[in-house]
């Protein structure tokens, strides 16, 4: 499974109150949530992401609350994958459950800059940067990969019956 696109870059400790503020949590509609993704940092984020982008971030991306809307909002806004030095556990699971590939890539926040074009092999974790350099991340395999492939945990549970 390959995803590719231009990079939007963020720093360390991007928390879920940044990714989708609590005032939007009374709804689960992906399109509504997408419009407010990353709003406290960049109200224009959803416009920039709509062409299909790869997010690159630092440590513990998605720390904080358990709100599943954080993963839903990013995916619906146009984020095809998130590459980070590390992820907060709850966000990581929520992303898989909503078919948003999340890949731990050591060194990614140093080696990749905003606007770079990256190509990511979700299974092997290999990241090609601007067609000429690679970084090795932790690929997604097993049940998590199956969940992503069928479009999330709801589809996975439905297809397993």
């Amino acid at each position, binding site marked *: 499974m390959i995803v590719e696109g231009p990079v939007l870059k963020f720093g*360390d*400790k991007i*928390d879920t*109150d*940044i990714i989708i*503020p*609590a*005032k939007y*949590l*009374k*709804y*689960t509609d992906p399109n509504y949530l997408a419009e407010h993704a990353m709003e*406290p*940092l960049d109200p224009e984020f959803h416009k920039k992401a709509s062409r299909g982008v790869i997010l690159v971030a630092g*440590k*513990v991306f998605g*720390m*904080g*609350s*358990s*709100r*599943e*809307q954080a*993963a839903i909002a990013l995916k619906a806004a146009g984020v095809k994958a998130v590459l980070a030095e*590390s992820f*907060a*556990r*709850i966000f990581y*699971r*929520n992303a898989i*459950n*909503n078919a948003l590939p999340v890949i731990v890539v050591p060194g990614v926040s140093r080696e990749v800059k905003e606007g770079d074009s990256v190509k990511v092999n979700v299974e092997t974790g290999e990241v090609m940067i601007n067609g000429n350099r690679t970084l090795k991340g932790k690929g997604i395999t097993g*049940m998590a990969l199956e969940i992503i492939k069928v479009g*999330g*945990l*709801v589809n996975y*549970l*439905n297809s397993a019956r």
Partner: protein
Amino acid sequence: MPTLTEKILSRASGRKVEPADVVEIRADLVAFHDLTGYHVIEVMEKVGRTQVWNRDGIVVAFDHLAPPPDVRSAEIQSKIRSFIRESKLPNFHDVNFGILHEILIEKYVNPGYVVLAADSHTTTSGALGAFAQGMGASDIAAAAITGKTWMVVPTPFKVELRGTPAKFVTGKDVALKLLGDFKADYFNGMSIEVYVEKPHDFPTDYRATVSNMGIEMNADALMFVPDSETKRYVKQMRGYEPQLVTPDQDANYQESYTIELDKMEPLVAAPHSVDNVRTAREVQGTPVDQVFIGSCTNGRISDFEIAAKILKGRKVKTRCIAIPASYDQFMKAMNSGLIHTLAEAGCVITYGTCGPCLGGHFGIAGPGETILSTSSRNFKGRMGSPDAKVYLAGPAVAAATALKGEITDPRDVE
């Protein structure tokens, strides 16, 4: 020899586990609140399975939207009430009971339990030695249906609390010390097991604050090793003595850390990060518009005892909001005169709601305002406007700050 983490997860998975194992485990309790509960139910409906695995194993409490601040919140609560009625779930707590995590430790959790809930602060139940962790709506829906989940066994980390807390030092200061010393990403993939040298000098109220903020440390769980204080608390709240599940004497930890409680002083986390930790003295004099004493982090009787002691016979200079975390804590505070003291000092008081902690209602932060809060998060925009600043601290710093209108070390207002 097994740590508490390994003991609990071995029992719950039916096999001997080690750190980094990926295991399927059975839950003892699965819980959700209003703001995540409707989403959990939505997922259950989407997969066409609305039967829960065990009615007694589900706990539901309304807290984030309690009482409803708008029409949509009321609608969300109605939807959940219908589900509770149709599913005949006995452990339901409507708007007049309290915050989910407080209710879990008051009424349901026993040492050694596995607790899964659709809220990150589920780690709070670690105060009683339970392996408790938050998850998203889909994972909790799956757990409610099957009674099971999968997880990666975390690496246990030992923390020892030695001595007796210095004046005005409580659970919040210990949580902030761990965050300041290790930073917010260090414990990712670990479970923290806390040993208390003098159990009754660091009571369950304090422990609940530290466990609560385990998620701010990005720990998978933060558990206090059950001891005589755990027994005392459960007996006092529920009338029975719980069985204690404890690590083996020679349990093996790769890393450990010791905190000398008598050498500590009151701490705060400055904007906009939980690990931006300073002493109260370092930031004293910072003008504050509003103080909030409450939340699942610091909304317990000991918090209001400390605040009332500082505010007795005096008037606050900030807006001050005080919210005991549950009906039980509120009634105890009322019967012992603490509510009277806080109201006389000028605090606005209710109970059993998350209120302003997540910028929901009952005191949202405006642009340019500075808040000092006993809650758990000071992320940009967390308590309202992204242009507000939030400082986190324990109840003593909060009360002293309300009294002076600026951040104040409580040792200066005695």
